[in-house]
């Protein structure tokens, strides 16, 4: 997933923008469903929300055009 997908104007396609938004929702739903939020939620390999955070950080530091 390209970091650019965080903003629909830089998404690779309409479908990619929609997929990004869905992924964002899935991450939030998952975290909202947990009884508590602790550091362990971020240590699972492949956790989409962890990937999300890493990409967001990279997006800021690259810097991107947004």
């Amino acid at each position, binding site marked *: 997933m*390209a970091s650019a997908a965080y903003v629909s*104007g830089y998404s690779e396609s*309409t479908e990619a923008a929609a997929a990004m938004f869905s992924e964002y929702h899935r991450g939030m739903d998952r975290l909202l469903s947990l009884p508590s939020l602790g550091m362990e*939620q971020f240590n699972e390999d492949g956790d989409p929300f962890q990937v*999300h955070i890493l990409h967001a950080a990279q997006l800021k530091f690259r810097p*991107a055009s947004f």
Partner: protein
Amino acid sequence: MQTFFTNFINPHLSFSLCRLCCSILFFFQYCLFSTFSQEVYLNEDLRNSTSKFYQLAVKAWPHFNYVAPHLLNEKKKKPKPSRDTRIRLGVASALFGPSSVTADFGETMARLSRKIFEVIYVDVRDSRPLDSPYLLKRASKGDQVVEIKLAYDEKDWLDEARKSIAALDLDILLYLDLTMSNKIQRLAMSRLATVQATSHGHPVTSGIDKSVMNFFVSWGAAELPLEEAKTHYTEELMMLPADSLHQYYKPLISKSGVSSVTGMPFAQFDRKVLARDFKIPAEDNWYLCMQKPFKRHPLFDDLIAGVLANDSKGLVLLHDLYIESEEHREIIHDRLVRAGVDMNRVHFIPTLPHHVLMAFYKESDVVLDSYLAGGCTTTREAIEVGAAVVTLPANYLGGRWSLAYFMQIGVLDTVSIMYWGFFSCFLHLLDNSDNFMK
């Protein structure tokens, strides 16, 4: 999660992500993908997503939930004898500018009757390095300005900000924009005044629970009918009347054709000069879209392709990236090619000084509103110089400003009600350009 991000703000920790981000004091926005970005997803359920954002924020950082002590027993509260009978209105923003927020709200707030309202500006200092000329002027006119200063420790900052605002004992706290500063976004999760409201400085619902952020103040002309529009907001939707402008509008162009932003005239930038300076064929039809590129949803690519397919003499002029990114440049290029756009007929224009931008509006054959997120200030400016703006309204407020302005001036020739109607608007414009400009 709270621990995780608390660790982030400790610069002595050596956690890898911490090293990556150690210059940033607080990671609220990285965790939650600031709601600012959601503005451009105007074909999604934004109320749902911003609401989840809020719920997750207060779950991860419970201290964002806060009610000022003086509001805890409101029913028992007695009026303070020292207070006059005016409504004490706090106007909060991190963008007192100069910015689009002061351009939109500045004159309106300045013109509220001081016999009815005691207006107190709450200046949340975020990234603005200098004093706000607007606030300096308001202070010179007798309004109180309370500055919420930056602090190294974000928790201290939030505590201090809450105390300062609660001490004002406001009847109403109005946030002009909630998503363009993450400081404001966090502050707004607190209940600090009897009534709290936000407005369209950034035209997206806050997602904050209605018990905290009570109202969203919008403009009827730019919203769908109330029953449908209110489903876009977590707040109760209050709409300013649709039959008049929602703000005190101060033209940005003088009658003599001088930009009030740069103080420069633009008449000298005629089509020949612009064509020469920006290497654009002067004789073709110019379709200009100077909305920032992040507002151009991929759906807009098909509209651009359609414009060029329907006008063999058409050239599309798009705002270039304003921060260079090879990745984004490649994505934008590839997207347009996939949509069938001949890239020889697309020109990218850099960010322009205001008077040159006005010249481009004036000299272009058609100005395109971006889609899904459309223009507001930009549309007003284009109308000011007599440009023909074609717009395709989206469902949300952020994609309906242009429609609202055209409704005010009673010109709907350039408003497309269907996706593919976009092109017939252009053809109609080009065929009737003389009549339209009148």
